[in-house]
């Protein structure tokens, strides 16, 4: 059995994973142009400057789209199929991949709210119907 594919921590993304561990979903915002983004990168993808800070997200978002895996491509997820993976757009703009928890029927553009869950000691930014 392959191990849980834990995220790789880097100097750049540790604030993101530390934030989730403390119950906060963080994103980056450019101090020069105000653009907001995820995942962590060293320069603003809009104005290309390297002056930015971390901000806490409200936890509100919308479901852009989702898929349901009926086949596992990694041992860790074999017992979990069928399971969903979703694209969520935060109210502040950044987008991330996630899972939607709970029993609500999914539809595109439905509101979702942050529901942080721990797996193998890693806090993950999951969402539920909002």
């Amino acid at each position, binding site marked *: 059995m392959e191990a849980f*594919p834990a995220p790789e921590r880097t100097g750049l993304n540790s604030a993101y994973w530390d934030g989730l561990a403390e119950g906060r979903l963080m994103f980056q915002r450019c101090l020069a142009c105000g653009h907001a983004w995820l995942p962590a990168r060293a320069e603003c993808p809009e104005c290309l400057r390297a002056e930015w800070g971390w901000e806490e997200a409200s936890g509100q978002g919308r479901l852009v789209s989702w898929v349901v*895996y009926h086949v596992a491509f990694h041992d860790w997820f074999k017992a979990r199929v069928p399971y969903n993976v979703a694209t969520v757009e935060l109210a502040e703009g950044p987008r991330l*991949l996630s*899972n939607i928890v709970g029993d609500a029927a999914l539809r595109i553009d439905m509101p979702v709210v942050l529901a942080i869950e721990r797996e193998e000691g890693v806090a993950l930014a999951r969402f539920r119907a909002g």
Partner: protein
Amino acid sequence: MVIAGIGHTAFGRLPGRDTVSMNVEACRKALEDAGIEKGVVDGLFVKVPTSRFESMYGQKVAEAMRLQPRVGGVWDQGGATNCSTIGFACMSIAAGLCDVAIVALADNPKTGTRAAYERAGGDDAAYGWFGVHAGYAMIAQRHMGEFGTQAEQLGAIAVAARTHGANNPHAALRLPLTIDKYMESPWIVEPLRRDDICLVSDGAAAVVIMSEARARELKVAAPVPILGFGQGHTSWDVPQRPVMTTTAAKVSAQTAYRMAGIGPADIDVAQIYDCYTIAALMTLEDYGFCKKGDGGKFVEGGNIQLGGRLPINTSGGLLSETGMPGLQMVMEGVRQMRGTSHNQVKGAKKCIVSNQGGVMTTHSTLILGV
């Protein structure tokens, strides 16, 4: 510029063949088809094998053919590479950098390695995000939600490809498909089923490019004019695209139509890259054959089969002929313009070809005509 010759290996399982060897066979056959000697070739444009990346691969292929190209190298736009390198070859010839170019591709993911196809999940693997299928499925779900696209409409694309491929003796999968059988095909990553997903195939192909004048001098028997080409590219990760349901196919086609001086209404037959049914459906929209969102209706009722309004993928495409990334679509375009396809569209004068790579990440277009 013209495509002067086409050549390919067998498609499917080619155990023990390395990609350099397959490239050489395809190039030899393309030169034979053009009726020219190797010695006139001074440009060699190669797609790096997706199955195994290696450095300066283009010069390994050149060495295996004892070529000293004036222009050479490998390009990587995934499956979009081939129509793009044909464009680069045309521009190189026009600029005087070379005179006669070969564009070639070989891949052996079926019996060699397919490690490069297994996309690394990165930090998203913690959420269970693996592989390429899911990226296409994510786009398909959004398209279905926004526009009401139905599973049966995706199925119509698979049925057309498999119907055409069954008539093609070179096709790796010659098993016709019905809509009912398509609907019974198992989910892989919902909303995509097994039969929405292309084949995995070994194989190689090559085409020879030169000017019309050079083709006359060299007495090429059946040159096919290149009327236009274009490219377009978007972000690597699907979630980062502001709009998921319109692709770089749109700008690529606009560039190619403008160069050719024609529009979608002038196209008689189309070879639309169908690594996944949703990719073909969205490309038909982005190429202007119908309005955005109407792709599902457009492909219904045999419209895209031989005898329909716009026959597509007349050799079976990636879903039936070979999963090889791209050149089979170009070669079938050439056959249609020569009148030699196994599923010939009678009187066809203009063919558009799409190539794309990644998860609708890179796109290139070619318009052929007589």
